[in-house]
């Protein structure tokens, strides 16, 4: 694995936020606590988990929208630091979740897509700028006549296209997609998902695709990572993780996904987890999942399980690996 040069190589990424709790007391909120993963050129890594698991924070920390508390991030073999980030920004971009709040309502489409060009001085004259913007709009399937319109005049799907065009403006190699289809209607989701795939084929960009819609993630991703309370609990190929989830959390997560097929839905058994996700401010000791885990044992509280390669390319963080084999026969998505 290490022989191949990775585009994105994240090692032990940590992101703590200070939270004030009364008189001068500051507690660290461990949003991301030691997460490592790699993404190859032109690959899509899906990142799934429930709200508060830190998946959005991972994406934002990679783009230095937050200053990381710890860990290293190698981009294309180069260690990303505060110093070289401004130049690296041209190669990393982000698509945001909410197509309504991610576009400035007082700017025209042309100016929104043109902003990265302005910031990085990527054109020599006005005509070139316009030409670039129009070709970007064409790439994402927007009508060039609409360049002078304001973002609020477009529907959700079209707005998300504008956001994608903005991300593509600097020719990035890597795009963090932070729940890019969650706010869209089902019929529009497919349009946008298809576009992400086409862009990858055409431009060879790599994605970190953050989402909570597990069916969409499976469709678009090559590999999938599952996060729980700031930690990665499982990482494997997309089909492998869906067909043979090993970590008890991944299993119940996958079994909870509502299946749009009444016959399957009627026959299938859900593994319904009891209880709520604990607050990251007072996460349980040891394995963060043990409070809700159906297989939880006493020794789970003692130390944090490491992410271990159980099978080739399939990583799981669980103390009871001997049970993992047994769990494998458990519930499957189908």
């Amino acid at each position, binding site marked *: 694995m290490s022989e191949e040069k990775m585009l994105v190589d994240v090692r032990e990424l940590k992101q703590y936020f200070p939270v004030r709790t009364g008189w001068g007391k500051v507690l660290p909120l461990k949003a991301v606590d030691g997460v490592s993963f790699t993404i190859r050129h032109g690959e899509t890594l899906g990142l799934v988990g429930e709200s508060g698991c830190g998946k959005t924070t991972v994406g*934002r920390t990679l783009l230095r929208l937050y200053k990381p508390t710890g860990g290293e991030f190698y981009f294309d073999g180069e260690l990303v630091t505060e110093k070289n980030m401004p130049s690296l*920004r041209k190669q990393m971009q982000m698509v945001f*979740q909410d197509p309504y709040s991610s*576009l*400035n309502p*007082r700017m025209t489409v042309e100016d929104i897509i043109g902003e990265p060009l302005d*910031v990085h001085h990527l054109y020599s004259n006005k005509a070139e700028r316009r030409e670039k913007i129009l070709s970007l709009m064409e790439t994402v399937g927007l009508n060039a006549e*609409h360049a002078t*319109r*304001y973002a609020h005049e477009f529907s959700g799907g079209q707005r998300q296209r504008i956001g994608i065009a903005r991300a593509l403006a600097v020719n990035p190699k890597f795009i963090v997609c932070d729940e890019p289809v969650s706010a869209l209607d089902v019929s529009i989701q497919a349009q946008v998902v298809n576009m992400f795939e086409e862009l990858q084929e055409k431009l060879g960009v790599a994605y970190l695709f953050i989402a909570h819609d597990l069916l969409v993630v499976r469709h678009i991703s090559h590999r999938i990572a599952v996060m729980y309370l700031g930690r990665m609990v499982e990482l494997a190929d997309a089909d492998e993780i869906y067909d043979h989830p090993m970590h008890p959390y991944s299993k119940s997560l996958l079994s909870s996904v509502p299946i749009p097929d009444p016959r399957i839905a009627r026959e299938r058994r859900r593994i319904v987890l009891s209880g709520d996700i604990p607050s990251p401010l007072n996460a349980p000791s040891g394995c963060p999942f043990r409070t809700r885990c159906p297989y939880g044992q006493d020794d789970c509280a003692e130390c944090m399980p490491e992410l271990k390669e159980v099978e080739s390319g399939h990583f799981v963080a669980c103390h009871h690996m001997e049970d993992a084999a047994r769990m494998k026969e458990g519930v499957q998505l189908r």
Partner: protein
Amino acid sequence: MSEDMPKKNPLSLQIDLKKFEPATEEEKKQQDVMSKSTTFFRDSMKKLFRNPLAVFSIIVLVLILLVIIFAPMIVPYGYSEMLKFNGTKDKTAMNLAPFTYSVNEQKYMAEHGVKLFPHIFGTDELSRDYFIRVVYGTRVSLAVGFFASLIVLVIGVLYGSISGYCGGRVDLIMMRIVDVIYSLPDMLVIILLSVVLKELLDGSTGIIAKLGTNMVSIFIVFGMLYWVGMARLVRGQILSVKENEYVLAAKSIGTKSSRIVRRHILPNCLSVIIITTALQIPSAIFTESFLSFIGLGVAAPMPSLGSLANNARQGMQSYPYKLMFPALTICLIVLALNLLGDGLRDALDPKLRK
């Protein structure tokens, strides 16, 4: 499920088979028209002009503005000029009722067969034309209101946006300063300042002397104290705008802070700033009128609506109209500005937008 729903068989014989051919792409496209392009500003203005109260206020304000600009050119009297007859003060021209002439003037008109310009609002106790005094008073009041609001606007927006955008410790310190300023008694400061300024500025000439030290201290106090409300508002607005994902998006592109504030944050605070400024003007006018009324306003003989009302108070029983004219003018201006501000808020506030 029951079958008793109303059903109609659409398969009547007269149906045109041509209609059942596939539609072409163009035909489908025609169905899909995007609504007409409007900018936020144009849309807001349309909304504003559909609000009858706002339109009424705009008309009133424009009329008042026209009067105070052009009346001094037409009316042949000055605001500090006592009516004279044959080079001496016309004693018969004191406290005339509206549209009347003094005894001397009537005599003059009868002799020469000419018509003198009427005293629309009558005259005051020093034989000065009252209409022109009210006009000048309105000028002063409006100018004070406008410039005071301008000062508030500039300082408030600057201070608020720095505090809001920087956040953290900077914000904490800047807002504590605001809290301290909030706790200063404004009237006391105005009075103290005007006493101090009187010594400092005595003997100076020009516009300052004409307006009087009181007026200068009002401006200073507005500049020093009254911007805090605006600053707090702008800060709050920026804090909420800052949370929007487009600001994060701009950061992820690599946009510099100054550009983010200029292009992304301030334009989205604009409506709140405009509304607050529009509502700040009448409150400044009120403050000025109040100060003039208690004798801390403009220096005589320069009138302001407040000082005119104060002077009229003494002869209220005999000449009630002298109180009525300036008081009505204040009411009209303040009411119109408030209604306009309300109209602007309805038109600009995106939260009320559907």
